[in-house]
C-alpha cells in the first residue's frame, strides 16, 4: 500500500534581492527586486508503506522543500500530495499524530529544560496513553542510550546527545511516517553509525515509512534501498543505488601496485590516470574495456597487485551533480 503519493508538486519562492552595502539597502527600501526560485518544479513519486527511501541532491536542490510540503508546513503552489490518505496542508490532528519531522539543524527540545520534560510534553500533546509512553520511552532509552542525559538541561548536552534526544522526542508518539532531514549532520562517525542503526531498527520494528535526506552518502548507502535524486527542483533519478552505479558509472577503476617504477606515458594509453603515487596507480577505464586493459597491464608491466573496482558512490554522485548529464 502506498503511504506517500506526490504528483506534480511545485513550490516556488519569491526572494527579495538586495545589492550589497548601505546604498543597496537604501535602494531596496524604495524599489524592491524580487527573484523567483524554483525550489521544487513538477516532482512526482510514490512511496510504499514501510519503505525507507533516501533523498539526495546538492544544497538547494529542493529536498527540504519537498519534506516540508509533505509534512504540511509549506503550502504547495501546485500538485497533489497525499500522506497516509491525508492532504498534509489540511493539518488534520489525525494526520499530524501519525507523522514526525526531524530537522538536524533545528531543535524541538526545550532549550532550558532537560529532554525528559519535552518527552512528557509530547506525551500529552500527542495523547499517548501512559502504558504505551512508558514502553516506547524505555525502548528509545535503550536503543539510543540516553538514560544518563535525559535529566540534564538540553543546552548543556553535546550535539550528538542532543540529536539522540531529538529523535526520541519525535518518536514518542510512534509516528508511522518519519521525515528525517539531515539527522546525522555535524556528528562524528561513531555517532553517525549509532543514529543509522537506530533508524534502521525503528523502520523494521514499527514498519514505519521513512524519507531521509543526507549529505553523507554513508547514511544513504547503509539505510536506503531506494534513492530519489533531486536537482534544481527536478527529480532526476528514482531507483536503487546499484542502478545509479549501473546507469551513471561508465567506467571502472583499476588500481595497481607496481614492483618497480613505470613509465607514466605508457600507462596513459590504457586509461585516464586518476592518481599516480608510485608504486600505486589508479586508472579509470571505460566499462567495456576494463578486462582488456587489465590484461595489458599484467602482460606489459611489473605488477605486484591489481584490483578492479566500481567507482565510489560519492564520486558517481558528485560527477552526476557537476556533470549534469542525467539522460
Amino acid at each position, binding site marked *: 500500500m502506498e503511504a506517500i503519493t506526490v504528483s506534480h508538486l511545485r513550490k516556488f519562492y519569491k526572494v527579495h534581492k538586495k545589492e550589497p552595502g548601505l546604498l543597496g539597502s537604501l535602494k531596496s527600501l524604495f524599489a524592491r527586486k524580487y527573484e523567483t526560485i524554483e525550489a521544487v518544479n513538477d516532482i512526482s513519486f510514490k512511496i510504499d508503506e514501510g519503505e525507507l527511501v533516501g533523498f539526495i541532491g546538492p544544497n538547494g536542490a529542493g529536498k527540504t522543500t519537498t519534506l516540508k510540503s509533505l509534512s504540511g*508546513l509549506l503550502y504547495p503552489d501546485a500538485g497533489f500530495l497525499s500522506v497516509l490518505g491525508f492532504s498534509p496542508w489540511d*493539518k488534520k490532528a489525525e494526520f499530524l*499524530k501519525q507523522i514526525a519531522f526531524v530537522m538536524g539543524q533545528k531543535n524541538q527540545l526545550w532549550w532550558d529544560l532537560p529532554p525528559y520534560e519535552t518527552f512528557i*510534553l509530547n506525551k500529552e500533546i500527542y495523547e499517548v496513553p501512559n502504558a504505551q509512553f512508558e514502553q516506547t520511552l524505555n525502548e528509545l532509552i535503550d536503543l539510543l542510550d540516553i538514560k544518563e542525559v535525559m535529566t540534564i538541561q538540553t543546552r548543556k548536552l553535546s550535539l550528538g546527545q542532543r540529536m539522540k534526544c531529538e529523535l526520541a522526542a519525535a518518536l514518542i508518539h510512534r509516528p508511522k511516517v518519519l521525515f528525517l532531514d539531515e539527522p546525522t549532520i555535524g556528528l562524528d562517525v561513531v555517532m553517525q553509525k549509532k543514529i543509522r542503526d537506530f533508524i534502521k531498527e525503528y523502520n523494521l520494528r514499527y514498519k514505519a515509512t521513512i524519507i531521509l535526506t543526507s549529505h553523507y552518502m554513508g547514511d544513504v548507502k547503509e539505510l536506503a534501498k531506494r534513492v530519489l535524486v533531486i536537482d534544481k527542483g527536478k527529480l532526476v533519478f528514482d531507483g536503487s543505488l546499484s542502478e545509479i552505479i549501473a546507469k551513471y558509472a561508465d567506467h571502472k577503476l583499476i588500481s595497481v601496485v607496481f614492483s618497480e617504477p613505470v613509465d607514466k606515458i605508457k600507462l596513459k594509453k590504457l586509461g585516464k590516470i586518476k592518481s599516480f603515487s608510485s608504486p600505486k596507480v589508479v586508472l579509470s577505464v571505460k566499462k567495456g574495456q576494463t578486462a582488456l586493459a587489465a590484461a595489458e597491464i599484467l602482460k606489459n608491466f611489473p605488477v605486484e597487485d591489481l584490483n578492479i573496482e566500481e567507482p565510489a558512490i560519492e564520486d558517481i554522485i558528485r560527477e552526476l551533480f557537476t556533470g549534469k548529464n542525467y539522460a
Partner: protein
Amino acid sequence: MKKYLAILKTSFLADLAYKVNFFFYFFRQTLQILISLLLWRTVFLEKLVFQGYSFQDLIYYFFILFFVQTFVDSDAAYNLSGLIKSGDLSNSLLWPLSFFWSFFSFHWGKKVYRLFYFLLGIIILAAVSTTGMNPLKIIIFAVILINAALLIFLYQFFLGSLSFWLVNISSTLWFLRQITDLAGGGWLPLDFFPKNLSAFARVLPFYLTVGFPIEFFQGKITAVLVLKNIFSQYFWIFILFFVVAFLWRKGVKEYEAVGK
C-alpha cells in the same frame, strides 16, 4: 484542555530557569516608577492638586499601573515574530493542536509566577484603598483585567503575525508599544492630557487595557460607564479574534519555514 495545560506547565518550568531575570524585571519597573515620581514631585511642589490628582493619588496610580501591567502586559508579538522569523514556528505547527491556543498556553505559562507578585501587590493596594473595596468590586476588577489581558494578547498576536509579510518588525513593535502605552494610560493618567486628547484616548481600545482597569480600581468611573467599557472590551476581543484568525490563515500560507 489537558494538552494545553501541559504546555502551560512546561513553559512555566522553562521560565523558572531564569529566576534572576524576573527579579530584574521587577527591579526595573520599580525604578521606573520612582523616577517618574521624582519628576512629578517638582510639579507638585508648586500645586497641591494637578488635574484632580494629589501627589499621593499619583503614587497610588503608578502602583496600580505597575501591578495591572504585571498581569496584562505581554511580549507575545515579539515572541511570535521571533518564531516566524527563525522558522522555529515549524515545531508548533507540527503539533496536532490549535496553534493559537498552544501559544496562548505558552504565553500564560511564562506569566504564572508574575501572578504571585500581582496578587500580593493588589491585596496591599486594596487594603490601603480609600475608595472602599468589596467582594463585588473585586470580582468585576478580575473580569476587567482578564478581558484586558485577552485584548492585549490578541492585539500582540495580530502584530506578531505581521511578520509573515514583514520579516523584521522589532523596531516597529517597539515604536507601537510606546504609542499604545501612552494612549492607554501606561505613562501617566489620561486626565493629565489636554481635555480633547484625553477624550480621544478614551475612545481608543488601548484605554480598555490599562487606563480603564486602573480608573475602575481607583473608583473614578460610574457604574454605567464601567458596563459600557466592559462591553467595549468584549466588542474589541470579538473583532480582533476574527482579524487574527483571518490573518493567521493567510500568513501560514506565506510561511516559508526557513532555517534550512
